[in-house]
């Protein structure tokens, strides 16, 4: 049981924090890119979607180069703040937020684009500032689409494997999430444990997908 719950708890923790980060950044960017065209918008859009198509190993390698102990940012994090992200669950959070960001962003942008611009304009004519328009008009009208994207991002963060393994390693109890525990159990020929872990992660993911499907359906 212990072998099941420790990775499950860690997975939920990592996925939760990663989803929060991805949601904050993804919703803001989705709103910004949905507002009006600007030069280079499609380039920004492509960059944000990149984690969805790049191999996880490539993302892992980018992150190592960036936040590794001798990395571009990592060396300063280490020198100035004594922060080391490699081999920590916080490192796993960063890897998971990068891969799940496109799902929030895409969902949020589509949802904002579907909102009729006249509502926002009406609010503006009534004297609302941009922040108020966003918080009280655009966001509530787009919330279902955003929520569905966030749910998908959570499921994706839960299943993250490749970049996480490269960044956070495979440390039982510290960074060994469910997907990595499955990998290790199979590598060790421990099929029974692999089966249990697989069942757990499948059930949780089905739950998340059903919930996000309901959110999207209720909209129409």
């Amino acid at each position, binding site marked *: 049981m212990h072998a099941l719950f420790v990775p499950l708890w860690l997975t939920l923790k990592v996925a939760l924090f990663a989803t929060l980060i991805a949601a904050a950044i993804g919703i803001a960017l989705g709103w910004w890119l949905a507002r009006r065209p600007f030069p280079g918008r499609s380039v920004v859009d492509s960059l944000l979607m990149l984690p969805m198509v790049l191999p996880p190993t490539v993302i892992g390698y980018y992150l190592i180069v960036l936040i590794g102990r001798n990395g571009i940012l990592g060396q300063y994090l280490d020198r100035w703040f004594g922060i080391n992200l490699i081999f920590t669950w916080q490192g796993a959070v960063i890897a998971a937020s990068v891969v799940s960001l496109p799902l929030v962003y895409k969902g949020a942008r589509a949802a904002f684009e579907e909102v009729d611009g006249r509502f926002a304009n009406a609010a503006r004519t009534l004297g609302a500032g941009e922040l108020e328009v966003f918080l009280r008009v655009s966001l509530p009208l787009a919330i279902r689409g955003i929520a569905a994207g966030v749910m998908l991002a959570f499921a994706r963060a839960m299943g993250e494997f490749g970049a996480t393994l490269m960044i956070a390693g495979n440390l039982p109890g510290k960074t060994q999430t469910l997907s990595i525990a499955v990998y290790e159990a199979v*590598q060790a*020929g421990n099929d029974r444990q692999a089966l249990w872990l697989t069942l757990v992660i499948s059930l949780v993911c089905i739950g998340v997908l059903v919930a996000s499907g309901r959110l999207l359906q209720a909209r129409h």
Partner: protein
Amino acid sequence: MTIFPRLRSAALVATLLLGSAACSAQELIVSAAASLTNAFQAAGKAFEQARPGAKVAFNFAASGPLLAQIQQGAPVDVFASADQETMNRAASANLIAPATRVDFAANTLVLIVPAASTQAPKQLGDLTNPSFQRISTGTPATVPVGRYTMEAIDKAGLTAPLQSRWIYGESVRQVLNYVARGEVDAGFVYRTDALIEPEKTRIVLTIPTITSVTYPIAQIASSKNAALAGEFIAFVRSAPGQEILQRYGFSKP
């Protein structure tokens, strides 16, 4: 309609090509311990030259995962592990042809640090120093270097003080990579691995192991290329084969 016959002849040619390739070239699949990567790649080339028509495909990983793959029915012909224990497990599961099993190389466990590191531990006990926050070795359950390490650590009475500092790698080569990149403060690898990254890592200690680091090789029982598998094993043990292994730092078993 005129396209059809052409398509058919193209298909025929393709079938012939694929079929003849499958029939004539004898391909041997060798699953070998990660530490053998460079030495076996060189040995494989030499073997292909010495025996025209033979092709060797290598599958390198830690010995544990290789065994799990063979157990799950991977079409492997030859298995070379970095310890006796993994091969014993293969033998007790009747996966290898017992008569073909033989030791062909030996290695040494060493402690390495990043080349830029100023630390120079004089004995294993020095690893308890707070400056060694992260120490890497292979996952003991599946990676032989991890088992050799834990034996030595256990014997030195350091199991408890070092418990929270381990960073486990998927194979000895990942441990080497962690040290070379400076992500860990020290790591346990084989001497032959350290020799591959002489610019980025430095050997600081040679660790006497309780179980000697010897490499057994054997033909897989279900191999359809038993004869060629036997030839490859014989080549690895022959004078030219041993010369290649020694060039990469391995010693005789």
